[in-house]
């Protein structure tokens, strides 16, 4: 292939013909157009005349240009030009297409796939084996799986980026899996990952390694922190670049629960900044609702930051005692609480009656406060509904006014001994007590108790109320967490300092000391604030700390995929807390929401420990290209150019015609018309070339118009009679009513689909075999689905259907035939039935026999003994089955000229004509009844209506 810029030519030597174009131009200029031949008798008069002008004999310049253009396009077209020709290397080594497949790939994943598809197709043309894999998944046992390029089409489209980054282990295992010579195209995510150099070296050692990388920076959202009530939103990008503004949207449920964008803010990367942070101040109501932050317009797991309780600040109610206000601030129990709580959340102060209706998350109750009975009940309800009540002891509690009173016992985790305990006082032998290290199960676990914390006084739990919490009793079997209460913190001598009790969904926590420094130095220490924070985190459903023991399992609730879409993950296996604590998402630990009991934890790519994105640095000898190959896809131009040439030649023909004389133009038009006619002829031939299969042709015939049908009995004479009978009825219907049925169809109930026919006429033949079970099933479903069958025993009701005594062979046959049918209760059609007035007003239903007794389903208005539901109720009141013996087909039968074919029973005095007319009228009524249902049943009211109209 010879290449010229972006153009390649498959047959470049054809282009030499372009050199001939000027010559053609000159020739076209020199050659006059063909003369018009004209017969002319007066040619003798012309002899000797000469034309002085000769300019116009030349071809018009535009025609010349047109012809030249056509020629040029044809030459260029035959040179097989290709736009953006892909150099096809002569290499036949297998091609390995590797994706990092990390979240950083996700933003331009379609482009990567498209490029990979182009590579795959090219490899397919070169007959190279192909393997496609992502590095976020471990390699197969035998290394990459190579196969024909065509086999990868579907699997390539199914590749998805993972919401984590390839780990060093994965790189290592891939490097180990590369053993055979292979050409590699590595779609890098643009980030530096540990261990990638080793893999690159391994691949480069085995063959040609090309790196495909997006030169743009990769952006990662997170972490998002809560600092002093405002959200600090951070984002990182992998390399410096131009100023970049990201729009961050916080999503969460609105009060009605529908997901909604709750807040937006902009993040602006400076020209040389890789990190950016912004403050977002939101009302805590709004902030607590946000479940995730997302960079607008970026589809990647790195563009999503899931929030957990850490960003929620609890609503804290601090109940001020009634007696407060007179004393000094520093002596007020509220003061220390307020100071300690201020950085932890929104603190409301007030009395219980005011604050309880605002449904705070946490209520702090000091010793000053005396809830009334009603308030106590309300508090209890609130706690049971999930509130956290934190109480502090004090002189009043110690005096037992509270602990012994029944109404307040519910608001204490443990029953208290009256009087309390004074340690290290003047009358005490004991020294002030320090704290024992917090038990592991306590929310305070891990906090270090400073030595200076000393407890001087405390209230005491009833000894039997709590198990003795000694350091030896930390084994799981000891029932620390009981319904009755548990110790969260112990003094050095083992007496509980903080006790708690679960109550409903909530919890009651009691500090056995006051909230001011009068009983202990606890409120003065930093520990106090830390303890309160732990309590508040617990109130948020937030883990006080991640349990890193392998036995502590966290259940994924929902997880992000590589594109940042949150999906339900509750069926995924649990993960150990240790892995979660490490905070690095991986194949077994996708980013998402994890839960352990009530505690929820969000794992994000942009977590606090992952704050720097380092761009990938490749060895300088590697070939690195952008994703979208600048050359674009290969584009053969030959069809377009040849099309242009053809169009130009067509235009040339038209122009030449325009230049011809009028007569020649007409001839031309005729010629074109003839050609066009011949071009059109094959159309219908093709359409007729494929006849429909007979079943479908039948269905088409039955569906394209209303068709009366009869059941083929196997008796040719009977079938013929039914056919002509229905033909005669169809003819009558078409003449007298709006129903214009097509030619009747004989139906084989064993084979044919019945659903197309609204009505089946079934002449009973004694010789007819009983239908098969399958046919019965179809007949029954036909009847239930709104079909109707008219059984004709053709015996003039000699048998009578009222009893078991079927005396005629056809009636006996009908009885045995109807065994398998779902026949509703029947009754003779009486005066007033819709059949008697659906078109004509009829008294009887004569056929070949004048005595046309007809049986139909019992009408709903008639009393019926059985509790069986009427089939006709589902069918507009139309009886699914009619039974009679009138031999109607014989009465309806006419030949093509409308002449009757069969003699009738001359029972009615005026002879056959009147009876035949009545039979036809019955037929019309019958089909009307079938097609319109009980529409005419309303006619009973007609006389009344007419009478009223007359007035």
């Amino acid at each position, binding site marked *: 292939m010879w290449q010229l810029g972006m153009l390649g030519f498959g047959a470049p030597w054809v282009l030499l013909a372009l050199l001939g174009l000027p010559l053609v131009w000159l020739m076209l200029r020199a050659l*006059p157009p063909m*003369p018009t031949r*004209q*017969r*002319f*008798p007066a040619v003798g*008069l*012309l002899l000797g005349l*000469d*034309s002085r002008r000769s300019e116009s004999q030349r071809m018009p310049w535009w025609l010349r240009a047109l012809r030249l253009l056509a020629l040029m396009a044809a030459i260029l077209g035959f040179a097989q030009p290709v736009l953006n020709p892909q150099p096809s290397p002569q290499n036949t080594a297998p091609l390995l297409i590797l994706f990092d497949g990390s979240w950083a790939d996700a933003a331009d994943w379609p482009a990567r796939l498209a490029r990979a598809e182009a590579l795959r197709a090219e490899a397919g043309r070169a007959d190279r084996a192909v393997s496609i894999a992502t590095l976020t998944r471990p390699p197969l046992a035998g290394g990459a799986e190579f196969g024909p390029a065509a086999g990868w089409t579907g699997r390539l489209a199914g590749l998805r980026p993972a919401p984590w980054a390839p780990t060093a282990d994965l790189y290592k295992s891939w490097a180990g899996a590369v053993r055979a010579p292979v050409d590699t195209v590595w779609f890098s995510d643009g980030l530096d990952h540990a261990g990638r150099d080793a893999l690159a070296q391994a691949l480069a050692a085995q063959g040609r390694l090309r790196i495909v990388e997006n030169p743009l920076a990769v952006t990662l959202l997170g972490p998002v922190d809560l600092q002093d009530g405002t959200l600090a939103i951070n984002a990182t990008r992998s390399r410096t670049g131009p100023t970049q503004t990201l729009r961050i949207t916080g999503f969460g449920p609105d009060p009605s629960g529908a997901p909604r964008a709750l807040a937006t803010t902009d993040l602006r990367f400076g020209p040389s900044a890789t990190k950016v942070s912004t403050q977002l101040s939101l009302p805590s109501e709004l902030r607590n609702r946000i479940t995730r932050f997302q960079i607008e317009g970026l589809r990647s797991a790195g563009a999503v930051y899931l929030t957990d309780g850490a960003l929620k600040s609890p609503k804290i109610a601090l109940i001020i005692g009634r007696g407060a206000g007179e004393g000094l601030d520093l002596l007020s129990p509220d003061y220390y609480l307020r100071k300690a709580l201020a950085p932890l959340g929104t603190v409301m102060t007030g009395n219980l009656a005011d604050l309880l209706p605002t449904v705070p998350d946490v209520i702090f109750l000091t010793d000053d406060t005396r809830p009334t009975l009603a308030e106590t009940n309300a508090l209890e309800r609130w706690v049971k509904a999930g509130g956290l009540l934190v109480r502090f002891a004090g002189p009043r509690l110690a005096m037992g006014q509270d602990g012994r009173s029944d109404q307040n016992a519910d608001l204490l985790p443990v029953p208290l001994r009256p009087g309390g305990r004074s340690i290290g006082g003047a009358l005490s032998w004991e020294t002030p007590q320090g704290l024992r290290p917090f038990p592991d199960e306590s929310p305070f676990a891990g906090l270090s108790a400073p030595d200076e914390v000393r407890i001087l006084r405390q209230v005491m739990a009833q000894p039997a109320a709590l198990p003795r919490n000694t350091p030896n009793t930390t084994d799981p079997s000891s029932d620390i967490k009981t319904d009755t209460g548990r110790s969260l913190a112990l003094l050095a001598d083992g007496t509980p300092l903080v006790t708690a009790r679960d109550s409903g969904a909530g919890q009651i926590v009691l500090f056995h000391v006051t909230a001011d420094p009068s009983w202990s130095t606890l409120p003065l220490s930093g520990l106090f604030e830390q303890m309160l924070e732990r309590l508040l985190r617990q109130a948020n459903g937030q883990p006080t700390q991640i349990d890193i023991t392998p036995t502590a399992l966290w259940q994924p609730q929902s997880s992000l995929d590589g594109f940042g879409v949150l999906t339900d993950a509750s069926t995924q296996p649990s993960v150990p807390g240790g892995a979660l604590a490490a905070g690095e998402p991986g194949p077994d630990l996708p980013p998402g929401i994890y839960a352990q009991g009530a505690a929820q934890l969000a794992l994000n790519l942009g977590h606090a420990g992952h704050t720097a994105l380092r761009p990938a640095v490749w060895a300088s000898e590697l070939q690195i290209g952008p994703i979208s190959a600048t050359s674009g896809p290969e584009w053969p131009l030959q069809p377009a150019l040849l099309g242009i040439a053809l169009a130009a030649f067509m235009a040339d023909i038209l122009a030449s015609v325009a230049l011809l004389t009028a007569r020649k133009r007409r001839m031309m038009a005729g010629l074109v018309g003839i050609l066009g006619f011949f071009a059109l002829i094959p159309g219908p031939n093709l359409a007729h070339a494929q006849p429909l299969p007979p079943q479908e042709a039948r269905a088409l015939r039955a569906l394209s118009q209303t068709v009366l049908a009869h059941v083929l009995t196997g008796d040719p004479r009977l079938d013929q009679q039914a056919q002509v009978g229905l033909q005669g009825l169809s003819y009558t219907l078409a003449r007298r009513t709006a129903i214009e049925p097509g030619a009747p169809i004989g139906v084989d109930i064993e084979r044919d689909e019945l659903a197309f026919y609204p009505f089946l006429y079934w002449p009973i033949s004694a010789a007819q075999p009983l239908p098969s079970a399958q046919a019965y099933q179809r007949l029954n479903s036909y009847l239930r689905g709104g079909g109707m069958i008219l059984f004709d025993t053709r015996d003039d009701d000699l048998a009578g259907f009222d009893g078991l005594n079927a005396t005629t062979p056809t009636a006996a046959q009908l009885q045995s035939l109807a065994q398998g049918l779902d026949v509703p209760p029947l009754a003779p059609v009486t005066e007033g039935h819709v059949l008697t007035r659906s078109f004509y007003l009829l008294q009887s239903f004569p056929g070949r026999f004048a005595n046309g007794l007809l049986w139909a389903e019992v009408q709903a208005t008639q009393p019926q003994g059985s509790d069986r539901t009427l089939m006709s109720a589902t069918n507009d009141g139309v009886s699914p089955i009619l039974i009679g013996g009138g031999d109607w087909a014989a009465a309806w039968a006419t030949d093509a000229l409308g002449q009757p074919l069969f003699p009738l029973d001359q029972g009615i005095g005026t002879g056959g004509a009147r009876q035949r007319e009545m039979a036809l009228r019955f037929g019309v009524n019958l089909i009307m009844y079938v097609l319109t249902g009980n529409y005419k049943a309303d006619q009973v009211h007609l006389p009344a209506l007419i009478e009223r109209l007359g007035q």
Partner: protein
Amino acid sequence: MITNGRIPTHPVALRQSAHALADPLPSLLAAAHRLAQGVAAGAHGRRRVGRGDEFWQYRPALPGDPLRQIDWRRSARSDNQFVAQREWQAAQSVFLWADPRASMQFSGAPNRPEKAHRAQTLALALALVLLRGGERVGLCNGPTPLAASCGRGQAEALGHGLLAATTDPAHTAPLPQLSAVSNRGWVVLLSDFLDDLAPFERATSAAAARGVQGVIIQVLDPIEESFPFDGHVLFESMDGITAFDTPEAADLQIRYKQRLAARKDALTDLARRLGWQFSAHSTGASALSALLWAYGAMSVGR
């Protein structure tokens, strides 16, 4: 059908050619009849006194007039005697000639008749009118001219003769056989007169010298008069022998028209010298006008 210039000799082929020949005859006769309807039927007098049935004029009786010639009814109205004279209605022999040559078989448009057809129709219609008037009509077409005769049967013979002359491929006698025309007879000549006039002029002059009177009608197609051509055109004569190539036909239009006018002038001049009548007729115009003109021209000359 006579093709390729060979005259069939086998009886079957002869009959076929006769049929082919006769085929256009009824339509030609019908067209001629239709055309002749436009001219008042009946014998037309010579507008002079002579033998005939029609009253012409009364004149005072002169000495020597037989008594039985005196119109007594007229004479009784005055004191003088009058003689009723009748118009002279002597039969004349008229010879027709329609140019049979190939140049006449041209039509400039599909809905226009060929010049030959128009000429034959005109000739035959004139013959019909004349025959109805009791004249004797003959044909000086072709190698064997048809002798002048009267009666309705003559019309069919005339039609045969006209068609036979056209389909004679050899054109053995392109010029009218004026020697067949009786002295003081009439001749009607229909042609486009687009070729050399000299032989024609010689023949007519000789005939005029014998006292033959004549009517010359030049039949032309409208295209031949307007010359609506442009561009590069190769003109071919009808027999394909002569061709003329011009790079720009429109350039020739004016000069062609000049030449055509000169030709008409020459014909007019010739007719005047011979004492004959000349008119040009276009196939685009109504044939009836040409017929009326011809009939009138013959009436004037008598």
